[in-house]
């Protein structure tokens, strides 16, 4: 019997589970109370950007899920910047926390289990900056969809099937601009539909989502993200559900739009090809942490972290024949019991002695290219590299 218990890591008794959930309720209730306050003075979440050239700065963000079998550290100390007018690609496997990072910024993480427990998300509004992590729900509603908007993965499920396309677009505009007349709102909606390359804008305005194809629906979702002239668009796997030829159309559209509207794009995907094509900056995530970040050509032409290298080698590439694909051994560690050493150590084939120690801090290869791996630790500079 005892042997069995040891073998089944991850299984816990009902009593343990109850104990954990009791503690969780205490923790999450405190967070919820803070978020649901009314009439919070602006000064509480006012902050200053480290660099005014950035639209968003993630600084040591921690988002945890307090589940009944333990705390899942979905995002565990993520820091990166999104500069104005640039595209930042976030790449990683499923469960690495790339979606949770963007959801935290929108405050759309499944509450009350999911909570942003630590860190700052500084949002640049031009004349001032807010810390999204501290913002109450009330203030967040004015930001969401207006300053930051989102394109979701499934165009089939992100549109409401019982309302016409026009109504759904109008709703976004009139909610954030209550002073506009219905005629102006409609004109704005139709302009947005035209902008995403749909010829028959008037016709589509009056149609229901099921009458459109997948590619058209994704265009509508993009139009919906654009109508309020956001400063940042989060595109969460915008082309994963689409065919290759439709994917090419949508990527082309996103590229053209970006030059027209001067917004930044946070592009989340697991497809390295899409990232290489679209992004100016690349952030590689693994198990809730950023393992490598830098300019696109730095990360793609000179990948340093063993995980990035493995990821690139394991993807077959057109016109490049290999006899055997490289495959990263093992699997992602259990998110409830994360090791205290480097999370990738157990799958890494390039370990050095230092890997048995603490989780590696950020090491600079160049000014923009940053890697969290002990292989690039420079004794002379030592801790000075740590920011």
């Amino acid at each position, binding site marked *: 019997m005892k042997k069995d218990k040891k073998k089944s890591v991850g299984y816990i008794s009902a009593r343990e589970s109850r104990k954990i959930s009791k503690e969780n309720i205490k923790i999450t209730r405190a967070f919820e109370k803070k978020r649901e306050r009314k009439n919070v003075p602006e000064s509480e979440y006012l902050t200053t950007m480290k660099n005014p050239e950035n639209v968003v700065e993630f600084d040591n963000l921690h988002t945890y899920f307090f589940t009944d079998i333990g705390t899942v550290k979905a995002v565990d100390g993520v820091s990166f910047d999104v500069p104005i007018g640039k595209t930042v690609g976030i790449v990683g496997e499923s469960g690495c926390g790339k979606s949770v990072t963007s959801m935290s910024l929108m405050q759309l993480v499944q509450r009350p289990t999911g909570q942003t427990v630590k860190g700052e998300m500084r949002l640049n509004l031009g004349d001032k900056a807010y810390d999204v992590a501290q913002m109450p729900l009330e203030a967040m509603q004015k930001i969401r969809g207006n300053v930051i908007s989102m394109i979701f993965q499934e165009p089939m499920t992100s549109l409401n099937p019982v309302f016409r396309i026009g109504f759904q677009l109008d709703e976004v505009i009139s909610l954030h601009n209550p002073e506009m007349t219905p005629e102006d709102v409609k004109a704005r909606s139709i302009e947005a539909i035209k902008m995403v390359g749909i010829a028959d804008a008037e016709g589509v305005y009056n149609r229901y989502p099921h009458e459109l194809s997948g590619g058209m629906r994704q265009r509508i979702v993009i139009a919906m993200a654009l109508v309020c002239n956001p400063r940042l668009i989060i595109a969460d796997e915008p082309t994963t559900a689409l*065919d290759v030829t*439709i994917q090419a159309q949508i990527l082309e559209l996103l590229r053209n739009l970006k030059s027209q509207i001067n917004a930044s794009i946070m592009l989340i995907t697991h497809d*390295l*090809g899409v990232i290489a094509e679209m992004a100016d900056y690349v952030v590689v995530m693994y198990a809730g942490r950023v393992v490598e970040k830098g300019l696109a050509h730095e990360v793609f032409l000179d990948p340093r972290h063993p995980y990035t290298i493995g990821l690139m080698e*394991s*993807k077959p590439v057109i016109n490049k024949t290999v006899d*055997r*694909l490289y495959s990263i051994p093992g*699997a992602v560690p259990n998110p409830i019991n994360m090791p205290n050493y480097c999370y990738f150590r157990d799958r890494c084939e390039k370990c050095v002695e230092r890997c048995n120690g603490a989780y590696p801090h950020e090491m600079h290869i160049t000014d923009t290219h940053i890697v969290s791996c002990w292989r690039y630790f420079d004794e002379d500079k030592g801790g000075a590299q740590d920011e």
Partner: protein
Amino acid sequence: MSETTKNVVEVKNLCKYFPIKAGLFGRVVGHVHAVENVSFAIKRGTTMGLVGESGCGKTTIGKTILNLTQKTSGEVIFNEDTQLDKLSHKEMQAFRPKIQIIFQDPYSSLSPRLPVGEIIGEAVREHGLVPEDELDAYVTRIMKACGLHEYQKDRYPHEFSGGQRQRICIARAIALNPDFIVCDEPVSALDVSIQAQIINLLEDLQKEFNLTYLFISHDLSVVQHISDTIGVMYLGNMVEFADKEEIFANPLHPYTQALFSAIPVPDPTVKMNRIILEGNIPSPSNPPSGCKFHTRCRNCKGVCKEKAPRTMEVKEGHFVACHIYDPESGYENE
């Protein structure tokens, strides 16, 4: 030696129409032309890749070949003499182990109520492939070949990750010692690093057991890696079919060219000459007249709208269905 050059599967003019029913009495009002006039052959020990957009009939071909759906017309010949629809029920049962399928979604294709050992061993016992007392050892051997451990035999599918489940699906197919396996998008639901593991496993097993695959996928880079020959489908038709090297070096059909140029390359220094296809795939229940691709084709001329192109062998083993390469079509004269 002759074993290696034999065709395991030969498909001739395969058609599959699905009826569209309407009204109270289910009157047939039309047909979805899922597969039309598709012909190809797969040699023993090789892999044929089938690519195309969703709804182009790739999966229907896989299912029709295995007689999981009845074909409308045409011939499917296994091992140069067996036609499934001509077999009696008993003969069919005896033949089933020779042809297997691996499905796309490992979450829904495994019974949640059976332990893994039983999932893999059930069909083996049913067909009496190994004596009852050796079954356990046989299942263990198959599991090891597929990268699973012996102690996992008593576990249930929900205890496994996506990649592991796909290994179970593969083990279940391999256990019957098949000749031919249809792999219907086996890696699309998996992460990149797990994808590589499963692709490598499929290749290893192919070498070990001399298997023949029909590999269906919409991911061109995966198909290019694993296949020996590639067929490109569009709206139920096979528009181009050739060896892997030939088709990537020299894609002829305008659709193939557009499809290949649409693949994103993970290298920011490469600037793609992208051919962006306008519009969407037309409905297969009401396909365009003439060449089905003419609504999106940039080389479209009058003849394309009127006459369906024939499939031409432009080079040895390189088939293409397009008027541009048919000297008798009158395309050049327009």
